[in-house]
């Protein structure tokens, strides 16, 4: 060990205080000079200095030089949040053969300069935080990170385009992947679309190959009609319980020949078909769609006569030559161990019925964009025709943007995809029906490769664009031309006049929303949500696919509204992050674990019941508790509870925190 590593051989610590300007981010509000002068007056401080960007190479080299020259053996950096750069500076310490835990950060950016108006007040607060860091670091001891091996398998949750792409990427890299999907088939929303913007290439043509690749891939275990029930453990070593719902079909035997479906006692559909978002009906036994993956039938227990009332001729059983039907199938729980988890649980579309003045559900010819996506799909309920409920083609169609977006009463955020898919639908509707198409928008948002060009194409196709949010849709006619039509009322804000536009069909461009059960899901995986309910990334710019739980990554719309290209890009990124973790082969655990000072332990056993991880055990002959460092996650709950103060937590000992408290208050 180098001299710098053994702290203050003569017992007297040598503390270096380095204050960062962060350009003007800190220096703009905090008098850095003053804080440095102040730091110099603090006990044990041997070096106090400042620099424009401490996190930059020159900045780090300043610290490393002072360490090497033996000027300092403990380092306090006053800059941004430790969640931002603690790792950076710890690495710098190591590079200088110093122990990375003889380091403390004072957060004078996020907690001071960015949130304080008054310059003097900001400077005083910065001083206080620096004083606290200096006081506590005196008590820091060198610590070693413990290394734990990483399980090389991965779990991907959600089989939409994001989950599919992430799973394939990991599998192609030779990792074993479990892909868990809630629905009977993978494919997600993309499988429902006919064309994709702005290229208008066929959605199925680009998606289905990837779906069958998933099915065929030797490294992928695909569990559809399944949900993750429980996640235990920590980064690199998660124990996961997956609930497989009974589909009453033996997956390994079924070949998706449709014989059973045709044979069902119900000769036609009786429940609304989820895949066609209710535009058609399906039977109790069904295959979601011809390219479903796996191509395996499923029986809906809610409507199957046999399962509900146990009295059916069961023609499906007779029809199935492979005896794949099994009414006794039970729910089963699969237990797997994985090193990394990628969440790609996607989104749901906004319920248009919530905005009563748009008349969805009241007037038959008002559709949601997703319903129209199915309509224009050649494999959809109308085989690609855009039709009114009476079977006729519409002569005029209104497309209403921002339904359930940019509205503080529903969702304040912009759903990002609606402008573009509305343009796509406008084009397809005009192409299929020759109808006059009116787009009602607040702002046209086309930021993407080829997006603005697509907008221009539509303008040239003479689709009408009216800049104004639709006020009301009703069958209230004021002139003969409006009789029997749906009348859209909106202000044409560019003209400055209110317009009433009669149409035969209305398309409500519904926004994206988090799933209803997002709260339960995030608790299973221990990740946070934004207040809208989207999964929260670790850092909006620098860690967009990571979460605050190491080893859990995000891909696709579950993190926020996204279009297909963005979902795929993010899925790739998430897979790469997971690979980084897996291929390193080990994780280093923060050594902030609890430990028992045997001489003080009174054996009161209070701590035993408190540890959620069973890391504390009791030694009966010694009559003391002891902590298993490998199991301890370092919350410190037991430490706070220990009446005799025998339990302590590395990096957060009572004394260190008490010193910090003195520091923040009585530094002057």
């Amino acid at each position, binding site marked *: 060990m180098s001299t710098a590593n053994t702290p203050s051989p003569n017992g007297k610590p040598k503390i270096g205080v380095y204050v960062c300007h962060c350009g003007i981010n800190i220096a703009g509000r905090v008098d850095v000079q003053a804080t440095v002068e102040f730091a110099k007056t603090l006990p044990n401080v041997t070096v106090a200095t400042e620099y424009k960007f401490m996190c930059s190479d020159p900045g780090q080299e300043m610290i490393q030089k002072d360490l090497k020259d033996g000027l300092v053996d403990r380092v306090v950096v006053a800059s941004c949040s430790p969640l931002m750069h603690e790792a950076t500076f710890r690495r710098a310490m190591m590079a200088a053969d110093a122990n990375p835990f003889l380091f403390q950060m004072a957060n004078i950016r996020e907690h001071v300069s960015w949130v304080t108006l008054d310059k003097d007040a900001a400077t005083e607060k910065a001083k206080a935080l620096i004083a606290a860091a200096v006081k506590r670091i005196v008590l820091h001891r060198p610590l070693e990170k413990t290394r734990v091996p990483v399980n090389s398998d991965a779990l991907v949750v959600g089989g939409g385009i994001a989950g599919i792409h992430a799973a394939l990427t990991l599998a192609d890299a030779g990792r074993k992947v479990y892909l868990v999907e809630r629905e009977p088939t993978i494919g997600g929303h993309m499988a429902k679309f006919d064309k994709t913007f702005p290229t208008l290439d066929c959605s199925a043509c680009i998606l289905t190959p990837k779906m069958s690749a998933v099915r065929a891939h030797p490294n992928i275990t695909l569990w559809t009609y399944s949900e993750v029930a429980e996640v235990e453990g920590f980064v690199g070593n998660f124990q996961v319980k997956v609930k497989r719902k009974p589909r009453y079909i033996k997956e390994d035997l079924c070949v998706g020949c449709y014989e059973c479906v045709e044979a069902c006692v119900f000769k036609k559909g009786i429940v609304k078909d989820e895949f066609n978002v209710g535009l058609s009906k399906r039977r109790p036994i069904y295959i979601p769609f011809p390219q479903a993956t796996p191509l395996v039938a499923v029986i809906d227990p809610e409507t199957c006569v046999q399962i509900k009332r146990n009295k059916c001729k069961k023609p499906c059983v007779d029809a199935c030559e492979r005896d794949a039907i099994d009414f006794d199938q039970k729910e089963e729980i699969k237990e797997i161990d994985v090193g990394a988890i990628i969440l790609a649980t996607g989104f749901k579309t906004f319920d248009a019925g919530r905005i009563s003045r748009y008349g969805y559900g009241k007037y038959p010819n008002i559709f949601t964009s997703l319903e129209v996506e199915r309509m224009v799909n050649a494999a959809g309920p109308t085989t690609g025709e855009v039709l009114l409920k009476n079977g006729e083609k519409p002569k005029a169609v209104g497309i209403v943007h*921002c339904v359930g977006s940019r509205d503080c009463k529903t969702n304040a955020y912009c759903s990002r995809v609606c402008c573009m898919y509305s343009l796509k639908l406008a084009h397809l509707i005009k192409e299929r029906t020759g109808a006059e198409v009116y787009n009602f928008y607040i*702002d046209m948002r086309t930021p993407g490769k080829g997006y603005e060009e697509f907008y221009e194409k539509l303008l040239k196709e003479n689709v009408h664009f009216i800049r*104004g949010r639709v*006020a009301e849709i009703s069958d209230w006619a004021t002139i003969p031309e409006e009789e029997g039509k749906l009348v859209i009322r*909106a*202000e044409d804000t560019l003209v400055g006049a*209110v317009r009433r536009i009669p149409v035969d069909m209305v398309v409500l461009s519904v926004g994206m929303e988090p799933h209803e059960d997002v709260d339960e899901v995030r608790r299973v995986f221990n990740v946070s949500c934004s207040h809208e309910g989207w999964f929260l990334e670790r850092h909006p710019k620098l860690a967009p696919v990571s979460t605050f739980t190491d080893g859990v990554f995000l891909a696709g719309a579950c993190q926020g509204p996204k279009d297909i290209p963005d979902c795929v890009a993010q899925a790739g990124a998430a897979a790469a992050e997971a690979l980084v973790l897996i291929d390193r082969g080990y994780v280093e655990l923060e050594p902030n674990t609890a430990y028992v000072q045997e001489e003080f332990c009174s054996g009161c056993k209070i701590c035993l019941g408190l540890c959620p991880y069973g890391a504390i055990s009791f030694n009966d002959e010694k009559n003391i508790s002891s902590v298993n460092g490998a199991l301890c996650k370092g919350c410190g709950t037991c430490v706070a509870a220990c009446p005799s103060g025998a339990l302590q937590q590395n990096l957060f000992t009572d004394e260190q925190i008490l010193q910090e408290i003195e520091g923040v208050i009585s530094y002057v």
Partner: protein
Amino acid sequence: MNKWQGWRKIRYESDLDPHFVDEIASIPGGETLYSCIQCGTCSGMCPISPYMDYTPRQIIAMIRAGFRGEVLSSYTTWLCASCYSCTVECPKDIKLTDIMYATKRLAIRGKVYPKRFPTPVLAGEFFKAVEKYGRSTESWLLVNLFMKTNPFKVFRQMGLGLRLFSQGRLSLKRESIKRRGELKSILKVLEKEHMVKSKDELVSAGKEVA
């Protein structure tokens, strides 16, 4: 104005009032005014916007831009029937009806409301009556109103009036509360106070003014 002079005028920044928006926004809940995205829902919902000289959305744009004179002398605020459909549907929760009240009050304070236009007069008459008696008496309200705006209307309304009298739905008996003094002393306290804060009031209240 003559056609060849053109209808639109160039508006010079120096003629605008940059603090107008802050004044309007000083009413309770008024701060949402700043977040208007000019979507036009208000104008679309408004049953009267077709008759207004500026649509409600335009009024907000003009307030934000500081077109004090145009806004306060416009007919728009005086045509607002306070049906609140704009307020209810605004995606940014802008209390548009309250803003219309605010502009009405500023227009009256600044004596720039359209003269002889009946609504401000009605408001004035109503106000006086209630200030004095604590209640309004519809018969007198109407009489005074027409006297002030267009006396001949009285005769046109006469038929209707008589019929109402005959049905006991109008009477010239003054409605009044018993304890007028009590009310008087309550309202007296508020004599000098305004809900819309002027720029100076805002500054002295330590508010950040653009």
